[in-house]
């Protein structure tokens, strides 16, 4: 065969291969693929009316790479617990103190100048310099403390492991426990499908406990009797989305609730009666599928959100009208 013919055939073959490769690449480009009939779009729930967003992110404090467990605000400072340490940071981000802890903390709260830290199933009390003042008796092997709140001389501890709230005197004496059952023969009180079980005390002294499985905030008397509740179910912005929530709460000086949800992560403010007041941080500010940030409220009503995934404290302030 003529050499020229062979070369021509080879060139044509090469061109054909190049054409097929280019065609394949173009066809498989992400924007060239046909719509997927099975894709589940959640964009409508992630999009929030900007008029509802009444807070702005004023400062982000980046933290080191170790695991963070919880945040509290007290004595005009930010108190953080991590892997096995207690850390104090100024509101500008300067580290003021870091102390090792004898174990892995799970939750923290501050009352006056005392720091109460939960360690899975026991509570230890520290002074403002990080010195241990007392260590309370264990609440049992299956207890898992996820939140603490103190008022006057009483401490309430949310125990997700045994699905109950424990009431202590601040000297460590266990006074009572209640499980949220509305009648003694009810099958369940607090329903906790995931490891989130939060409680807080409002400025008026009322104890509020999240019942995550009912997507409800429940108000209890100091004796553990249910006094009232409100719940909001729904993936839209007015409700709490998913199986359980809110994952984290904090209470503003005016008694409104700051709530954080998991999965479709968002931070909102609900009035004490339950209506949505405003959005602090819409889902666009968080990566998909991240953890619900832990919350703390400052003395001026500013909101501190501990973003576990980005390892930073995100500070939000209300926009000026």
């Amino acid at each position, binding site marked *: 065969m003529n050499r020229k013919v062979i070369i021509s055939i080879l060139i044509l073959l090469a061109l054909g291969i190049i054409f097929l490769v280019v065609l394949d690449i173009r066809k*498989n480009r*992400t924007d060239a*693929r046909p719509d*997927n*009939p*099975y*894709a*589940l779009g*959640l964009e409508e*729930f992630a999009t929030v009316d900007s008029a509802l967003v009444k807070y702005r992110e004023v400062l982000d404090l980046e933290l080191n790479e170790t695991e963070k467990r919880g945040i509290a605000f007290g004595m005009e400072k930010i108190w953080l617990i991590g892997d096995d340490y207690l850390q104090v940071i100024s509101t500008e981000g300067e580290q003021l103190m870091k102390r090792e802890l004898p174990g892995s903390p799970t939750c923290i709260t501050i009352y006056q100048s005392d720091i109460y830290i939960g360690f899975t199933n026991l509570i230890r009390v520290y002074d403002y310099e990080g010195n241990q003042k007392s260590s309370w008796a264990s609440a049992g092997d299956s207890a898992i403390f996820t939140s603490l709140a103190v008022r006057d001389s009483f401490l309430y501890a949310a125990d997700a492991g045994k699905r109950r709230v424990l009431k202590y005197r601040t000297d460590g004496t266990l006074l009572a426990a209640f499980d949220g059952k509305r009648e003694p023969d009810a*099958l*369940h009180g607090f*329903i906790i*499908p*995931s490891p989130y079980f939060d409680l807080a005390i409002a400025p008026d002294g009322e104890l509020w406990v999240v019942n995550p*499985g009912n*997507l409800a905030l429940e108000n209890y008397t100091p004796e553990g009797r249910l006094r009232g509740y409100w719940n909001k*179910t*729904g*993936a*839209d912005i007015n409700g709490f*989305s*998913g*199986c*359980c929530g809110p994952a984290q709460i904090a209470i503003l000086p005016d008694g409104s609730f700051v709530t954080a949800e998991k*999965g*479709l992560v968002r931070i909102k403010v609900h009035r004490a009666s339950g209506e949505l007041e405003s959005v602090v941080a819409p889902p666009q500010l968080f990566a*998909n*599928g991240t953890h619900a940030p832990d919350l703390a409220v400052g003395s001026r009503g500013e909101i501190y959100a501990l973003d576990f995934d980005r390892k930073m404290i995100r500070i939000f302030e209300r926009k000026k009208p």
Partner: protein
Amino acid sequence: MNRKIFLTQSGRWVLLGGLAYLTGHIFFKRKVSASGKYVWQIDPFKCSQCGRCATQCVRDLSAVKCVHAYSLCGYCDLCGGYFKPNTLSLNTGAENQLCPTGALTRKFVEEPFFEYTIDEELCNGCGKCVKGCTSFGNGSLHLQIRHDLCQNCNECSIARLCPSDAITRVPIETAYQIKGDFINPALIKPKG
């Protein structure tokens, strides 16, 4: 240096580089099959539930199926994997169900808990329930390639288009990466 020496030396270096890469891959990647056999599998922590597993598999009904890690499930009444978002009534009406093939079924356990199971003969691996469960629940539902159905193609047509590179070849000894047993590698901390 003449052309012959240049080509000879280049060839040696390429060969040496290839050997070094192979050795490093064997010793440091650790994902080595003792039997030398590998299969395709989905890393549930990388999967973004895009829905392509249902449409790209060469099998008529995809070899990708939803599996359930019961130890992670909250057994909730309002299940984000079972119900469409913002469903008004929590009943088994088809209009409320997220699964396009009705493969996810629920059974009452005791008030207010329900058990969710997957009918694999109906499941097309679209991952809608997985996305719902991950977005609104505990993420106990996830996708896995069933090896009794998978043809173990030389090049997996789903892996080729997977937007999150969640499908890789894994040793046959660890053919399934079930959540609960399989821990997110990104969360494993080095000791010391």
